[in-house]
């Protein structure tokens, strides 16, 4: 049996309607008694890992990746890292990580403080909320998430620069840069996702829904085989 097969069937976990309204979602959360992973504060170990990941991402971005234009556009790994941290750790941690990584980027690149922080805060928070509300399991979810994060970051930069009085004209070239940047970041989302998950997942608190799903797949909560 394929491991992904039973996940798609309606089982005990999916007794609730497939499309959850906000009320039904909250009720179900209350019945579970445990909040999603993103709503709990991370412990010191996971905080340290996120910090190390953020520092590594910023330095790799500024030292290596920024100097490698692909198809004429500069690759930006940092929004991908922020989105994946938020997706794995939840909206609160994602927002904090986004703010921190954005602040680090602004400080390192001597940009206007707060611009990247603001954009990345929304990206981290949004990615965390996607996980908390939908918990998508499809294989291509990281790619889609990376594409959305890259697009939001690029458009957000443009809008912020425009609002701050930068005279860069809204032109076809700007649209091309945003489109190509999104495509290139989407292509790089898979390795960034793998690296982020490997760095964070071992220390993340177990998500009850995920634990239930695993129990359903393996036949029970106990790691021991059933008789």
């Amino acid at each position, binding site marked *: 049996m394929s491991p992904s097969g039973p996940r798609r069937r309606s089982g005990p976990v999916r007794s609730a309607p497939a499309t959850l309204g906000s009320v039904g979602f909250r009720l179900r*959360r*209350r019945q579970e008694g445990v909040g999603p992973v993103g709503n709990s504060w991370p412990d010191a170990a996971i905080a340290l890992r996120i910090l190390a990941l953020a520092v590594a991402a910023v*330095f790799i971005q500024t030292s*290596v990746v920024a100097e490698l*234009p692909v198809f004429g556009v500069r690759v930006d790994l940092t929004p991908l890292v922020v989105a994946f941290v938020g997706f794995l750790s939840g909206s*609160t941690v994602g*927002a904090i990580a986004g703010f921190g990584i954005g602040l680090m980027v*602004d400080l390192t690149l001597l940009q206007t403080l707060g611009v990247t*922080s603001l954009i990345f805060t929304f990206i981290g928070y949004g990615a965390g909320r996607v996980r908390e509300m939908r918990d998508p399991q499809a294989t291509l979810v990281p790619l889609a998430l990376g594409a959305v994060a890259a697009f939001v970051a690029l458009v957000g930069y443009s809008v912020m620069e425009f609002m701050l009085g930068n005279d860069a004209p809204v032109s076809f070239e700007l649209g091309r840069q945003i489109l190509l940047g999104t495509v290139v970041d989407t292509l790089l989302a898979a390795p960034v996702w793998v690296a982020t998950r490997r760095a964070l997942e071992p220390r993340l608190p177990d998500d009850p829904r995920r634990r239930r799903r695993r129990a359903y797949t393996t036949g029970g909560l106990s790691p021991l085989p059933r008789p």
Partner: protein
Amino acid sequence: MYKKTIRRRRAVLATLVALSLILLTAYFREAPGGVLHTVQRGFSTVVSPVEDGANKVFRPVRNFFGSIGGALDAKSETAKLRRQLAALRSQLVHYQDQARGYREFASLVHLDTRLGVGAYRPVNATVVEQSPSLWDATVIVDEGTPSGVAVNDPVIDGEGLVGKVAQAWSDGAEVMLINDHEFGATARLAAGGAFGTVQPKVGDPNEMVLQYLPQNTPVNPGEYVETAGTVSGEGQSLFPPGIPIGRVTSGGSQSQYESINVEPLVDLHDLNTVQVLTAVHGSAPERITQLLSSLDSPVAADPSSVAAAGGQFDATSGEG
């Protein structure tokens, strides 16, 4: 519990957004020497050694991916450079063409000064068509009767005599070159001053013969032959005096007269810009000028009206 979680999450988001906006506003409004700028520079100073280290560590990786990107870009870059090369080549050809035209015009101006042909109202014309036949030595120029060009007007270029106008119409003229078998002109040796008639050599259109020179005329190979500008037969010479025609290559004798071979100075196979002398002895404008001056009219005193009258005459009658 859940409401508390939601409130906390929203509070964190609001705090971070507010903090970002405060940072942004404060940074944007403060002077370059402000606190936030100083903190930013301090942070940059602290992390720059780390960045340098990371830069050095990752340089091979960067170079590797850079070389891959360079290889991928090389093809499109080559095509782009080829297009640029083609464009520059055509531009160079255009400039060279312009430079050649400039040289030709400069030599024409020089000839004007040297020979004083400016008095003959020269009209610059571009050769637009050249006869492909070896024996029918004519070219078509782009100036016609409206410019005062008329039949039998001499045509010169920077080297010397090219020929004369055989036909003229409203937007062009046919020029008979000096190597055409029907061409002939009175000429003289530039150094010796002996007169004769220069014509194309029979059987060799690239060579000319100066004949009917008096016997025992001293001729030196390399000596220049020029238009005589004197009476020849019943009328005046069509050509102003002193226009170079060719250079003596060898001598010979023909009964009581002497004839010598002359190599034309003008490269008749590479004509681009020429001058048509529109007011020479015997030409229509010159005859009109004489006519008007003989009438003792106030119009004759105005050279521009004379020129206009000459042009109109040519344009309407087409006579040479």
